[in-house]
């Protein structure tokens, strides 16, 4: 089989050209519109000098435009690198510097962010493609929307290479430098085809597009939809603030599939915004990225008994998800643990010395231009010489009945609201701030919907007054908002172990007892 991701759309455009592919607010694109616009972009990119194997970054708020771009970039034989439109600029600059794109495509309200990120980029600046009305002249776009509209709509000839990289997704890196995970066409295709068979997705499906495009899970929303010829409904990011608006969105869009990180399901349950028998057309609810608390699952299954509930598991390095567990019936007890289930077809899930290792069709070729990190995480397969497997760092227990249950992490990576966060990345950023002599970041379990609270202990330079709001604000210019600590403690010195290392367990204990104190105070007030 030699299909590549863009073929999915071309096939639908030939079969059902007028069928809706993507909906965003009042805008919609048919499969034919999508295919033709992507053809024009592919030609525009080629005319601007982009060659197969080149990288093209894109920066835009969630809308129809970036969906066209992903496809157009693939049609030009290049790989796409989504940039978080929420910034911050220095982090995006490191990503752009690492992947050396031939172009950055942009639209919407990202002009100041783009201008800031372009400043201080090392030599060989990428071209700017401003694909929106009114190109800003300061950014000196090499091409714009008018060039794209003038381009020929016929497909560009480009050899299909299923094992070529389709995109690079950057995740948090423990040393402060985000890691770029390379994902191939075949990686995504394997999951999309499995999901199509397993869930029975078809052209009558209306699929949620909740996850931002710079996260791995969105790849399934997008290409799973195209594979089925279904409709993708982009969920406006700001609805995440209002649980009752999210449920309105599901009702009005008549979604048949909801896929998100667990914190979103948790948020809606905590706000109690579901009615019994709600969302009559919803066929399946899926989550991935972290553990969904069982009481929340029970809340959902009682109110939406007609839907199928599936726990998916797997890191970006093994593409979207590697294992699944279809919850057979509403759990009898809130204490019941939900397993991560078994491997999807073509994938392999192993527990070796308590650590989850993954192999099979979803396995990424490795980290972008980082052979050292690649060799450390993608190791020789324990049973099959010549093959590789990925060490996830997730710790698991295999029960007597063969089900696999996650029990924690081997390192200091946490998941907060589905975001993968290396505490080391936050510490590295804090280390660059003036005014601090030293600092340490730990995470403690939270009873809120985010599951972990990030806590920072810091020691100011002698004679320097440092306040948490100023620290938070300085840090927010270096790391994404979801990495900002919620708790800040000023100390005269960090606690040390006898070997001189920062005593993190003790710091955690201190933050935990403070947290318990707060909870008691709010219960008695």
């Amino acid at each position, binding site marked *: 089989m030699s299909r590549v991701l863009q073929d999915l759309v071309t096939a639908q455009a030939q079969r059902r050209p007028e069928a809706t592919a993507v909906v965003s607010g009042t805008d919609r694109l048919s499969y034919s519109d999508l295919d033709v616009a992507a053809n024009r972009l592919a030609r525009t990119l080629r005319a601007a000098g982009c060659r197969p194997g080149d990288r093209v970054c894109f920066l835009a708020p969630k809308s129809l435009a970036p969906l066209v771009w992903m496809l157009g970039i693939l049609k030009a034989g290049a790989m796409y690198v989504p940039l978080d439109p929420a910034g911050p600029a220095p982090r995006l600059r490191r990503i752009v510097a690492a992947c050396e794109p031939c172009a950055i495509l942009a639209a919407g309200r990202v002009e100041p962010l783009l201008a800031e990120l372009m400043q201080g980029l090392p030599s060989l600046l990428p071209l700017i493609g401003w694909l929106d009305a009114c190109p800003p002249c300061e950014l000196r776009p090499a091409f714009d929307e008018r060039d794209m509209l003038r381009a020929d709509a016929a497909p560009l000839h480009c050899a299909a290479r299923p094992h070529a990289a389709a995109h690079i997704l950057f995740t948090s890196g423990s040393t402060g430098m985000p890691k770029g995970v390379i994902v191939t066409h075949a990686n995504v295709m394997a999951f999309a085809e499995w999901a199509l068979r397993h869930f029975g997705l078809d052209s009558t499906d209306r699929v949620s597009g909740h996850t931002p495009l710079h996260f791995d899970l969105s790849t399934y929303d997008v290409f799973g939809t195209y594979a089925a010829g279904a409709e993708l409904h982009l969920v406006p990011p700001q609805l995440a603030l209002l649980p009752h608006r999210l449920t309105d969105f599901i009702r009005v869009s008549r979604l048949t599939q909801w896929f998100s990180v667990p914190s979103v399901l948790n*948020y809606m349950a905590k706000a109690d915004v579901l009615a019994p028998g709600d969302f009559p057309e919803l066929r399946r609810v899926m989550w991935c990225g972290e553990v969904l608390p069982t009481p929340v699952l029970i809340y959902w299954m009682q109110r939406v008994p007609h839907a199928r509930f599936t726990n998916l598991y797997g890191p970006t390095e093994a593409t979207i998800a590697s294992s699944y567990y279809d919850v057979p019936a509403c759990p009898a007890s809130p204490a019941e643990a939900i397993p991560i289930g078994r491997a999807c077809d073509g994938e392999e899930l192993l527990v070796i010395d308590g650590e989850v290792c993954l192999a099979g069709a979803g396995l990424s070729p490795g980290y972008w231009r980082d052979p050292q990190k690649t060799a450390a995480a993608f190791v020789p397969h324990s049973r099959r010489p010549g093959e590789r497997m990925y060490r996830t760092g997730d710790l698991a227990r295999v029960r007597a009945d063969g089900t696999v249950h996650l029990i924690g992490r081997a390192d200091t990576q946490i998941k907060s609201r589905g975001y993968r966060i290396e505490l080391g990345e936050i510490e590295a950023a804090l280390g660059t701030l003036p005014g601090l002599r030293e600092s340490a970041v730990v995470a403690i379990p939270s009873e809120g919907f985010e599951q972990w609270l990030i806590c920072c202990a810091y020691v100011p330079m002698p004679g320097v007054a440092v306040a948490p709001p100023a620290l*938070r604000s300085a840090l927010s210019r270096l790391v994404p908002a979801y990495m900002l600590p919620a708790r800040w403690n000023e100390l005269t010195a960090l606690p040390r172990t006898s070997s001189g290392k920062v005593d993190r367990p003790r710091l955690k204990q201190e933050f935990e007892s403070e947290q318990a104190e707060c909870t008691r105070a709010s219960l008695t007030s």
Partner: protein
Amino acid sequence: MHSSVVDELIAVFRDELHVEVPSPDTDLFDSGLLDSLQLVQLLLHLEQRPDLRIPLEEVDLYDLRSVHRLARVIAVRAALDRGGTPAVPRAEA
């Protein structure tokens, strides 16, 4: 007027969320100051303050965009809770 509510909200942002809000009219979304985690933290802190209750089921995104707008929602809710008619007009200034 609800200026005291504005001051109290700014104090909650500063002392509990460690967020310095530059002005009551600062757009909390565009400036990245308020995301869903921060909003939930804010609501948790406000739950301990009956005088600053935000009726989440009645508000729209529009009402969360700035400290001024949040203060208006709180003032309207408080007036209704007291059984009166809101002294603060809902229309945007």
